């Protein structure tokens, strides 16, 4: 099915096998990144709904995002970049971790998708004058050193009228129980130390940061895991652990 003989620039051919194994790991719904795969349909539903609403696109169309330029910050193996490219968006996937880029490239190529993956940072892209219709900033802000500076950079990366979708984790006793104790120590869904609870941000704090960055927050929803159906779903009321926001650059 795949065509690994196709040369990919910047990759040492000897490394391809290693990257293929890593891609397989990223994309195994039952593997190391299982929690992301579980959450992905819920995140995608939110992102797609917000983009379609902002740009007046038909969600029943199979390529509704034709003509939109989208940046996926912290793209990892491409779990969000690939769906966005399938829906017709022109996608730039950026990740500061160098080893993620060839992995994501290899997988996208096998899928027949054209995605511009770059080993770079939001700051470098903004400095280079890159501008986008949509910036995805999913589960990133709780990992950066200076959230305000990071969100301001995201604002610079948007065209006027552009949309940023930003998700993170709330900071309260429940989120410590769920995200730190539950996900890292009990379920072992995430390596211990993945998250620093003190860096989690409450929805009101995030709205304030977004406003200071020069964006208008337009929507926020909780993402809630149901242990009976084993599924994530969006909630208008429960933003107590995971939540996602949409903001527009006016």
């Amino acid at each position: 099915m795949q065509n690994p003989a196709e040369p990919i620039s910047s990759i040492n051919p000897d490394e391809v096998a290693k990257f293929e194994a890593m891609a397989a790991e990223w994309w195994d719904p039952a593997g190391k990144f299982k929690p992301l795969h579980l959450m992905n349909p819920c995140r995608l539903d939110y992102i797609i709904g917000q983009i379609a609403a902002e740009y007046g696109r038909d969600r029943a169309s199979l390529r509704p995002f034709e003509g939109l330029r989208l940046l996926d910050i912290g793209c990892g193996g491409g779990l969000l970049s690939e769906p966005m490219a399938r829906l017709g968006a022109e996608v730039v996937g950026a990740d500061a971790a160098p080893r993620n880029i060839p992995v994501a490239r290899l997988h996208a190529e096998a899928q027949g998708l054209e995605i511009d993956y770059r080993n770079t940072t939001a700051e470098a892209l903004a400095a280079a004058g890159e501008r986008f219709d949509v910036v995805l900033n999913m589960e990133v802000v709780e990992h950066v050193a200076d959230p305000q500076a990071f969100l301001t950079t995201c604002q610079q990366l948007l065209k006027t009228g552009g949309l940023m979708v930003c998700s993170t984790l709330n900071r309260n006793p429940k989120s410590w129980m769920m995200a730190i104790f539950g996900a890292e120590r009990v379920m072992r869904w995430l390596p211990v130390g993945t998250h620093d609870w003190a860096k989690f941000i409450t929805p009101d704090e995030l709205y304030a940061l977004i406003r200071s960055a020069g964006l208008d927050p337009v929507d926020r929803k909780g993402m809630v895991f149901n242990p009976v159906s084993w599924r994530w779903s969006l909630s208008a009321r429960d933003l107590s652990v995971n939540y996602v926001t949409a903001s527009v650059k006016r």
Partner: protein
Amino acid sequence: MKHDSDVVIAGGGLNGPALALALAGAGLRVSVVDAQAPRARAAAGFDGRAYALAIASQRLLAAVGVWPAVSAKAQPIWHVHAADGRAGERSAPFGLRFDAAELEGGPVGYMLEDRFLAVALADAMAASARISFIPATSVIAQEPGSAGVSVTLSDGRGLTARVLVGADGRRSEVAERAGIRRTGWGYGQTALVCALDHERPHNGVAQQVFLPTGPLAILPLPGNRSSIVWSETDANARTLASLADADFLALLRTRLGDHLGPIALAGPRFSYPLNLTLANAYVAPRVALVGDAAHGVHPIAGQGLNLGLRDVAVLAEVLVEAARRGEDIGAADVLDRYQGWRRVDATLLALSMDAVNKLFSNDNPLLRAGRDLGLGLVQSAPFLRRAFMRQAAGLSANPPRLLAGQQL
């Protein structure tokens, strides 16, 4: 990789084409590979085969655009009359009677001949630019991969797609090649199927008579004609099948009663051995099963096609939702959603039909009294009767959109 189509469907019976139409209607590209030669249009006479379509199935056919072509040829079922009868006697007095008015209004189902449904599905596929129909060809090999599935056809051609659907019947080769094992058993029963012309009108009443050796269904077709599904022990069925038409009709008359007046055969007689076969999984890497490939059931109450169309509705909804989310529609987590939604329902229904059949195919006097009492109780409790009917009509609590008649 770029695929020839999004979905390859092995099997061009009824479920395969219905699925193709549902997917193509939402924008997906589909190849349907059918081992049969294309059916001769219009020329086909009545061959005695007909389906009892639940309302949910009729809604699906409407949602995929096929119903207008067959609605004038379908017989609405206004009442279902289920009764317990003993060989050689009339039905027991405590019968179970369903009236259409107890559902949301309209008939409880429709009878539709195979020749009309098959042709309407074929015509609709031919009219779709997104469906490629490949007749007189079969899938002989399949190779799942991380980005799709490669399929080899009997004419030597290769096709690639995101997902391969096995709609290839109870001896599904797609399932076998995917390593999906089956569980099944015979009933020791054979269904004798034929159509009758009769003098008096059936008034749109479908009857199910539970005889000690197996159920007898009398299902109304347009005009003064009915479809008969008479299940008997294998030994009895062999004897009945070998009888001359006149002798067969004479015996059938004793079970039918005389409400239809004089009867005559309206076509050839068929016999089908009854068995249950359940696939141990509905999905495998890049593979999903629908219809008899997933669960071949006893045709009691005509649930075989109705169950298959429920698979079609759920799989179509899962795949189209995934496509609209930009997901790889053949990825394992997407196919697992189909299996999770569908499998419990189909297995329970298959086993409960098995249990109903075993309960009624028994002449133990105690069981018989219990049956009559039980049917009488269901009859006297409207909410129980409506629940029973809803289940039989396929209108469960949280149906997939196509079964509610909605577009995907």
